[in-house]
């Protein structure tokens, strides 16, 4: 494992050099909040931001993505035939994402990338991207990453981990992709003075600042049907207005809907993020809706993240503890409270 020292004065220059090989993405301030977007020439990622409002999931998996084009013109020989829209996947790098957001891609991956099925859009996009993470030294009050299988210096899913130092950054290069990025940026000065000890100390200090915790130890052993029928769902779901905020700000939500749109005689097939909070999500063609009430939909979201995922993927909960759903829920539904209710539930 290599540790590289990046001096403040080399930061901008390095990113500029890297931008010749990579399309760069990073957190950028928009009025009161930050989002991830493609950086324009000379634009720097805002490394002061704690958490972006929307996660970087859209960098790999856009909210709306065109997949196929077709023609309805019957004079054309290939009318009504779906044709894949050519998309290029040049090398890209996300600079300044938090470790929780990087781990989120790993939690999402089993949905898009299995030995049997590969979602060509997600997989190509993910594989062409290098993740240069930024360790958290000051977590938000809503962060609970350390008890969600993650942490402020977590490395899984990252190619490089940057930690703030007085001189600039201490970079831990984690993968070959990471090495290639560092070389492209021209950051090559090896850090001296026991960098792994320094990083370990920073890590321990950061972890101690994450005071919010959830307990997840009993989720796996809980009986699915008992949890499903637990009496607390009416109380949990009462305030929910069934908007899609929690699912759209979440880095680990992956559901989408496929739509055809036509204009004149030409059309496209696209996919758009969907949300289990919407009644349309489960509406059958017959008119029947198996999740017709808001309580059922709220239960689905939490059961999926905290029970079904746990049972199916042996990968912990489908949550990295970024706290966005807690911060932005218009009615203050708190996944930490629900997780604890589910974890400690006992059939009476």
């Amino acid at each position, binding site marked *: 494992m290599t540790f590289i020292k990046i001096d403040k004065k080399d930061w901008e220059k390095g990113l500029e050099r890297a931008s010749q090989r990579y399309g760069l993405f990073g957190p950028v301030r928009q009025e009161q909040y930050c989002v991830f977007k493609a950086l324009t020439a000379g634009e720097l990622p805002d490394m002061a931001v704690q958490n972006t409002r929307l996660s970087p999931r859209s960098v790999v998996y856009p909210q709306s993505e065109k997949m196929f084009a077709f023609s309805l013109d019957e004079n054309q020989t290939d009318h009504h035939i779906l044709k894949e829209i050519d998309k290029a996947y040049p090398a890209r790098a996300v600079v300044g994402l938090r470790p929780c957001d990087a781990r989120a891609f790993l939690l999402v991956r089993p949905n898009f990338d299995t030995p049997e099925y590969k979602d060509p859009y997600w997989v190509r996009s993910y594989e062409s991207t290098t993740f240069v993470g930024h360790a958290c030294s000051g977590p938000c009050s809503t962060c609970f990453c350390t008890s969600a299988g993650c942490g402020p210096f977590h490395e899984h899913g990252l190619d490089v981990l940057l930690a703030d130092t007085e001189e600039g950054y201490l970079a831990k290069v984690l993968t070959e992709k990471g090495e290639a990025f560092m070389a492209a940026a021209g950051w090559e000065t090896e850090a001296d003075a026991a960098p792994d000890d320094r990083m370990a100390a920073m890590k321990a200090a950061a972890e101690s600042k994450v005071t919010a915790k959830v307990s997840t130890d009993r989720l796996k052993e809980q009986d699915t049907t008992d949890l499903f029928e637990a009496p607390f769902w009416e109380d949990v779901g009462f305030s929910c207005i069934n*908007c899609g905020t929690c699912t759209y700000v979440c880095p680990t939500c992956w559901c989408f809907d496929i739509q055809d749109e036509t204009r004149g005689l030409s059309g496209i097939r696209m996919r758009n993020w969907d949300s289990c909070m919407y009644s349309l999500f489960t509406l059958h063609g017959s008119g029947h809706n198996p999740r017709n009430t808001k309580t059922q939909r709220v239960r689905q979201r939490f059961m999926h993240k905290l029970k079904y995922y746990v049972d199916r993927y042996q990968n912990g909960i489908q949550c990295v503890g970024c706290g966005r759903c807690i911060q932005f829920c218009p009615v203050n539904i708190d996944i930490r409270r629900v997780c604890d209710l589910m974890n400690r539930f006992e059939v009476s």
Partner: protein
Amino acid sequence: MLSYIDKIKEISRRLLSESKVELVIGFRKGSVVMMNEPCFVRRPEDVGQLVWDGNCGINLANYLTDRKEKIGVIAKGCDSRNIVTHIIENKIRRDQVVIIGVPCQGMIDRRKVQALAESEIRQAIETEDSLRIKGDGFEKTLDKKEMLQQNCAICIHRNPVIYDELAADEVPEQSGVDRYEDVRRIEAMSADAKWDFFEDLLSTCIRCYACRNACPLCYCPTCFVDESQPQWVGKSQDPVDIRTFHFLRAYHCAGRCTDCGACERACPMGIKVRVLTKKLEKDCLELFDWEAGMTPDKRPPLDTYQANDPDEFIK
């Protein structure tokens, strides 16, 4: 306003123990700074969890829609006007609700407060007229009046217009308020400038529909954006579809919107969607001398016809 809570609890306890209602809908303390969560209480011994402070901005009329039980509900001025609208539109019966009126002095805009803080606010302590905020390396006291949601700052109906119980003496209504300064500014723009303004206004929308779902008026069994046969609106991030949603939603609220601010408060992206509904509110006031939700005894302008309705716009 903070002292209302004792009376709110007392009334709620009485209504529940005398079986006048099956549940009381109110607020419990939130888990995030400057947030409370709507909740229901079914047993008199549980009324202790109810809270009242400047973080009760969510419109509770939204939680009454189509409920069948007998319900006690805590209502600020705007909530009470939406309850009136619900009664007019048959979403709840008058004899089904016991309205616990709360004279309101405005709700805190937590995003406005956060914008004034050096880092994340970890604690907020509210008094009658001040708000003390603390976080890593800072602590400051703000004038609560300056920190109100914009719709509260320009509110002219702070007292409930309909109620069965009152949690406190009525508060004086604000006078001399200019409610439509922002609307007039947009009205004065050229068509092109208006287009740019709306494009910019809605550019960050993620179509989570929090604005729609927080609104007590938006109770259609199937919203027009969710219709599939025919499908009126596309579902992508195409700005045309996003604009269609917002403009049509605003029109559906014409003559019904009480400017409770639930939509803006709910928006995770901080979009000022109220400029759309306020324009329609202004039109209803100027054309029909109408303010929504003031009395259950009068039909709203958009579902009545009168021979002397203004028609200058038909030329």
